[in-house]
């Protein structure tokens, strides 16, 4: 085994045993062999979060959180600040990559029924990560003060002001009244505070994956250099995809109209949020009233939280072929819902959106309990090891 670095100061080591900690929990940590590349996703997510935090910090040096000046300050960043255009692109494309990774993580969790048994905490943490990320993403979207972001904030604040009772009080607390001067400054603070919370949740997720992982089955291998090499490769591939998007498709998934300044006197023809908010926004828009919309969104997320109970298969049993097929259909359903809600509204898209939302809830509330209780078909080759989550 690797000997300790002889340059370690015994003085520090005797007070704060960092290198021992590093050896036991990081570089020398016994890990399961032959883990797939996708197991690096939580690490990639944490890395992306840190990258977004740093680029956000640089942006915040120049961003002005005041209605009417915010868009202009972002243009200043893009046009005048040295490499400002690149930092801004890092931040917005980084958000897209982060959401893609989180959606992939959730999809894998549903596909492999990783929420069963002691994997439920990890599943809840992943969902909390997802919800916090949606909030932070929406806040970032409105902070850009583009034409669609301005109206998204304006509509949300106005709708919140119209609610009564406790939901109305909460909405008023969040927005501070109708949208106006000062709203953006609040949104910046929420954006930063929730982003820091995200870092905490992501770190807790990684720790929880390790503590709830099943005991190592075959002879373990040290994390370093086997998994440092795998993580390095995963990061590089992630960076390659990221670079292609940053430099050649910087506005992928954005509504074009959001790249024009906000105009309080004009509502854009197409009001859509960024791509990662589309499915949930569609679910929320299906009910005409504000309170109904909020309940619909909560319901859409609640069915995900309820999966450990909706899934009837025994912990330790692999999920059947039919269930896995239906999960793929669910994935396609969510993608189709996003595409349909981004398209210009028409009679056909209206029907399709309702259809996709009904299927979404049907999948969780009806199909999952039915198809998971009696697994159909043999265990596919390459399924996750019995017992739910993977070890780190």
């Amino acid at each position: 085994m690797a000997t300790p670095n002889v340059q370690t100061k015994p003085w520090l080591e005797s007070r704060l045993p960092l290198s021992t900690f590093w050896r036991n929990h990081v570089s020398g940590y016994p890990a399961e062999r032959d883990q797939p590349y996708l197991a690096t996703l939580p690490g990639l997510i944490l890395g992306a979060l840190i990258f977004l935090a740093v680029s956000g910090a640089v942006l915040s040096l120049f961003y002005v959180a005041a209605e009417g000046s915010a868009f202009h300050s972002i243009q200043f960043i893009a046009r005048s600040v040295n490499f400002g255009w690149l930092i801004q692109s890092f931040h917005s494309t980084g958000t897209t990559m982060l959401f893609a990774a989180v959606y992939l993580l959730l999809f894998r969790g549903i596909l492999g029924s990783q929420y069963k048994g002691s994997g439920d905490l990890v599943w809840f943490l992943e969902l909390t990560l997802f919800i916090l990320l949606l909030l932070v993403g929406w806040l970032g979207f409105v902070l850009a003060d583009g034409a669609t972001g301005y109206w998204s904030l304006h509509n949300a604040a106005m709708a919140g002001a119209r609610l009564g009772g406790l939901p109305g009080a909460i909405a008023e607390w969040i927005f501070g009244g109708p949208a106006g001067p000062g709203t953006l400054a609040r949104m910046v603070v929420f954006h930063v505070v929730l982003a820091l919370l995200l870092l905490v949740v992501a770190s807790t997720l990684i720790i929880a994956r390790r503590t709830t992982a099943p005991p190592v089955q075959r002879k373990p291998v040290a994390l370093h250099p086997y998994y440092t090499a795998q993580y390095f490769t995963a990061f590089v591939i992630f960076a390659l995809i990221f670079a292609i998007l940053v430099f050649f498709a910087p506005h992928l998934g954005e509504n074009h109209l959001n790249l024009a300044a906000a105009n309080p006197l004009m509502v854009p023809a197409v009001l859509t949020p960024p791509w990662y908010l589309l499915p949930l926004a569609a679910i929320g828009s299906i009910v005409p009233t504000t309170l109904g919309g909020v309940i619909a969104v909560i319901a859409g997320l609640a069915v995900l939280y309820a999966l450990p109970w909706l899934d009837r298969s025994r912990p330790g049993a692999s999920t059947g072929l039919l269930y896995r097929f239906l999960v793929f259909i669910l994935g396609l359903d969510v993608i189709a819902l996003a595409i349909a809600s981004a398209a210009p509204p028409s009679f056909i898209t209206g029907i399709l959106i309702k259809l996709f939302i009904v299927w979404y809830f049907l999948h969780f509330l009806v199909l999952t309990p039915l198809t998971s209780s009696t697994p159909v078909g043999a265990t596919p080759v390459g399924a996750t090891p019995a017992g739910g989550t993977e070890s780190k």
Partner: protein
Amino acid sequence: MRRTLIATAALAITLLAPNARAQDTLNQPHWQSQGAFGSYDKAALQRGFLVYQTVCASCHAAGELHYRDLAGLGFDTAQVAAIAANVKLADGPATPDDIFKNPYPDPAAAAAAFGGAIPPDLSTIVSARPHGTRYVYDLLTGYAAAPSDMTLMPSHYYNIAFPGMQIAMPPALKDNQVTYADGTKATAAQEASDVAAFLTWAADPNLDARKEIGLRATLFLIFLTILAIATKRKIWRESV
């Protein structure tokens, strides 16, 4: 048999083709900045700026541009100062540090002058419309006689590229409205193409740097990916 198949396919295509407008499909306009390896044609940008300054700037603002930014078009400091000095602001000639002149002191004055239809700010118009460069070109060249069954709103013009087909902006470009210094023939289509190029630059002045750095970064990362995969495999093969 084959001829029937081809004829059926051709008929199907014409029936299914979405709203094919009668446009010149033989000479598709093309801009050097398009594509993954595109870069700005500075000559076209300068011509486009001339058209912009002569025609568009009398009604449109571009609040995110400063005159000093025109150095990105290839003008030197003296030319930029001269361009700025030619612009008459309320308190004297403009300096390079000034924002592009807004023809109207406030939105109310603009609305009053145009019956409510305020000319939009053009700084980011190309980013704010899908396929923005092509959209600007199509808009400027899309004026036509209204079909007989359509009644135009007062002070509106028929334009096939504008959503709703009726636009409050009068046809702005005519042949030889400007004289190009480099001798290019100033047809209305050429002017439209050059203005579209200039407005593309206005919305995205860093395009050249972005694509150049992007190419290098992508190739470098592909190289690093291959190295990383090879190293990982080598490590996993060793004593595992």
